[in-house]
């Protein structure tokens, strides 16, 4: 077994040092009837590297690789190009195989990286501070709702119809058990342009927070200032959710528009698609709320000789000290994905992120114009960044499948995201990033056109 260094001679010497005859004597506390006498028979024995690789390659071959086909899927995870050096950096053994930096004298690499990450995230989201990451955007979103409840001591929250339905599902799962009341609603393909306006009218003094997504699930971008003001009038917090952080290279940050807590999915920068995980949750807020934040925080300090250094700080909020009174049960975060995010963001810098964002927007506009020129296809989004929703003349689920069968990954049908709501079946969310080429747009347009013609005939 290539990963196990002990030889039988070693084992014998060690057993005699311990003072026992056999390994079984070390398992004396385990009742005999609970112990297996040999390897589990239903499972195969060990395999060579080559055999494992062969197996994995065979499984991988059954999947359609995003990078090999015209690809327009977004809805909470986005395909961006990740520079080669990012993957090299996260494979440095000193990052990859390090532990949580609880011993700061020998973890300054991870700690400084986290401090840089927190600074990048806070600046991007427009918040005073940010933490060292969460599992993903959806869990960060619930943590934000939970935090707003602790701050305002209120248990009712209102979630915009523009928030990703899976994020709403996660919040509903938790609220069912914590006793929080969540007001939710479904988006509409007919009047989808500014769901925030409707929300504003519903905010009252009982609400701990209002949760909006920016850009929203249908791709719309709307000014959040009015809703922030209304929320603050009622002593409620505004929580903004960002699932596409590249957008913030082109549009105002939620913090600049008055959001108190901004959470996000950082996957777009550096992390890659990976079939849904691991991703990296972003979490920023106003400085005055920092003691109510969940998750790890890295802070600057000095060492005994006066040199600048970094440590995990404000740990008394966390489970390992506060136990049942902790702000969250989160322990492990998403350190290595935070490194990928930070390294990619460093490569981009201010200029690169802005350029990247403009290229995304330009390609999306180009695709939108081309697709909306197809007969029967209507634009259902208003202002957008790199994602928009089309209203098709028939159920988008069938069309997505039809196009997938032709090796075109066309987008996400609203029917898949909102199975309960009839009025949304014809909606299709299309994401267009820098990875999309003109010929991809043409291939999608042609296939969609053909499908609709066939469907109408």
């Amino acid at each position, binding site marked *: 077994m290539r*990963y196990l260094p*002990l030889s039988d001679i070693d084992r014998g010497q*060690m057993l005699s040092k*311990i003072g026992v005859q056999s390994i079984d004597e070390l398992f004396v506390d*385990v009742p005999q009837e*609970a112990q*297996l006498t040999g*390897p589990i028979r239903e499972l195969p024995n060990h395999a060579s590297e080559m055999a*494992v690789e062969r197996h994995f390659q065979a499984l991988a071959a059954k*999947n*359609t*690789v995003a990078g090999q086909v015209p690809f327009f899927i977004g809805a909470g995870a986005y395909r961006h190009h990740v*520079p080669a*050096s990012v993957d090299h950096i996260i494979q*440095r053994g000193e*990052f*990859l195989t390090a*532990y*949580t930096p609880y011993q700061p004298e*020998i*973890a300054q*690499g991870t700690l*400084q990286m986290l401090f*840089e990450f927190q*600074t*990048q995230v806070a600046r*991007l989201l427009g918040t005073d501070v940010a933490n060292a990451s969460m*599992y993903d955007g*959806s869990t960060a979103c619930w943590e934000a709702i939970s935090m707003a409840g602790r701050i305002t001591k209120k248990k009712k929250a209102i979630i915009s119809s523009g928030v*990703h339905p899976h*994020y709403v599902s996660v919040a509903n*799962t938790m609220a069912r*058990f914590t006793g929080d009341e969540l007001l939710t609603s479904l988006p509409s393909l007919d009047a989808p342009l500014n769901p925030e306006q409707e929300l504003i009218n519903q905010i009252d003094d009982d609400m701990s927070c209002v949760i909006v997504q920016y850009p929203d699930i249908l791709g719309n971008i709307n000014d959040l200032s009015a809703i922030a003001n209304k929320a603050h009038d009622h002593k409620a917090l505004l929580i903004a959710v960002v699932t596409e952080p590249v957008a913030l290279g082109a*549009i105002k940050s939620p913090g600049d528009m008055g959001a108190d807590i901004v959470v996000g999915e950082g996957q777009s920068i550096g992390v890659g*698609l*990976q*079939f849904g*995980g*691991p991703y990296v949750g972003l979490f920023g807020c106003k400085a005055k709320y920092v003691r109510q934040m969940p998750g790890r925080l890295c*802070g*600057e*300090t000095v*060492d005994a000789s006066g040199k600048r250094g970094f*440590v995990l700080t404000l740990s*008394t909020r966390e*489970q390992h000290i506060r136990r*049942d009174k*902790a702000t969250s049960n*989160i322990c*492990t975060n998403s350190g*290595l*994905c935070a*490194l990928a995010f930070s390294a990619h963001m460093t490569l981009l*810098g201010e200029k690169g992120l802005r*350029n990247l964002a403009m290229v995304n*927007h*330009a*390609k999306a*506009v180009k695709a939108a114009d081309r697709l909306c020129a197809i007969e029967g296809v209507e634009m259902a989004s208003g202002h957008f960044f790199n994602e928009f929703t089309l209203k098709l003349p028939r159920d988008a689920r069938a069309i997505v499948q039809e196009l997938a069968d032709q090796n075109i990954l066309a987008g996400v049908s609203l029917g898949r995201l909102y*199975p309960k709501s009839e009025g949304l079946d014809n909606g299709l969310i299309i994401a267009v990033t820098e990875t999309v080429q003109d010929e991809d747009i043409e291939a999608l347009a042609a296939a969609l056109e053909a499908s609709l013609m066939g469907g109408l005939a």
Partner: protein
Amino acid sequence: MKERDLNQGRPSRIFDTANDSAPAATFSGNKALMLDEPLIFELGSSETCGVDIDAMEPVKSRLGGLERSQVIGLAGLSESETVRHYTRLSRQNYAIDLGLFPLGSCTMKHNPRLNEKMARIAGFSDIHPMQPISTVQGALELIDELAHWLKTLTGMPAVAMSPKAGAHGELCGILAIRAALEARGDAREVILVPESAHGTNPATAAFAGYRVEEIPATQGGRVDIDALAERLGPDVAGVMITNPNTCGLFEPDMRKISDLVHAAGGLVYCDGANFNAIVGRVRPGDLGIDAMHINLHKTFSTPHGGGGPGSGPVVLSEALAPYAPLPYVTQTDDFFQLVEEEQSLLSDSDTFGRMTAFHGQMGMFTRALSYIMSHGADGLKQVSEDAVLNANYILRSMDDLLDAPFGHSGPCMHEALFSDKGLADGFSTIDVSKGLIDEGYHPMTMYFPLVVHGAMLVEPTETESKDALDNFIGSFRTVVTKAKDGDKSLLSAPHFAPRARLDETAAARKPILVWNEPEATEAAE
């Protein structure tokens, strides 16, 4: 001889450095390979970019007047500077790749590089979670295959794959318990947790809306089963028990505990953080538990990455299986289906809902399956046996020198627990830890579990050779001897690390959590 062959005056002897003092400081502040590194905000500029982005013809903006007008404040570096920045930072970290990493309850074992290679196959790394199901059959099959291994290794009938880490898995198990109890109209409000439990246990139960009560430990470091039996009643939803426990001991009465809890109408959550001690040799399902999370980043070697990402699938009993979270994978004939909200409407599933946006940590599933297949049933059994052997070897190589509070009662499992008893006055566990840093090791887990004073919890794992253990024991004994002898140099250790002890009090009193331009800081004051 020609002049040019005369060595050009280059000395051929080295000087005896013993009598020669080294310079006090260098111009750069560096010490040869010990390189300090500024922050990216101090190094870079807003104009520098390490990525070439293909230019686009500008289009008429559809951003609706929300164009960003203010600077973000990001600093960029070229690719060469970026690689150097992170490489220099990386060298200030300790890591498994550098040496033995004896953190108890954390299972820092070697991370095979085959796993990394498998996770990076485009067919797994470059697929989107919302792709049509027909285009991700191989990915769903992989999840199903890993699920099969986990179920079989634990002897449990079902598994929820989506939890993102251990604590998230705990939450999954507790929510399943709550959903099952509510389904039978039996709302209960208390979760019992042993006092030796990891902090996530009480935090999770509280996060899920339960009140937490502690059960004491016996003198022998086990759950006090009499106290537990006494506390059980109609208000107790369940217990959360770590087995092997955080003292590194197996709970021999686990089956009895499960039976007692079940008889009182409650359910049993087992924290599987220490599964590495029994994998392949003991099936937790045989002990009557209802739920247990498995940290893929511990037992199954997915990298810790400086604090995540983790992955925490939860195996479930028949009683809890119907309440498993969405989404999950099912198979009909040769087709794998992903049951999301859409399909769950059609089925009679009692799922408690969704825990995360997508399907879980696919990138960790690939790594874990690669590890598991590499070991196989025979190799995994050897894993737990070697892990336990290595821990007992350390226990018996130290217990003449260092107090092992449970050492007299018998062997430990995969980790050896010591206390600070016998250290000189004014010396504590932290001084032993920092002394180990100077010896070139990451310290053991310190001050946990709380039931032992000044705890030192050492988990060597099975991927250490006997030589590696002997070297570590030599260092550990040396440092402990210094702490017992009152060697003051230990109080200011580490002396050879990139940083001396850091002022955590200052960091917490006036938190500086983001970098600010120096001018801005001065102006603010």
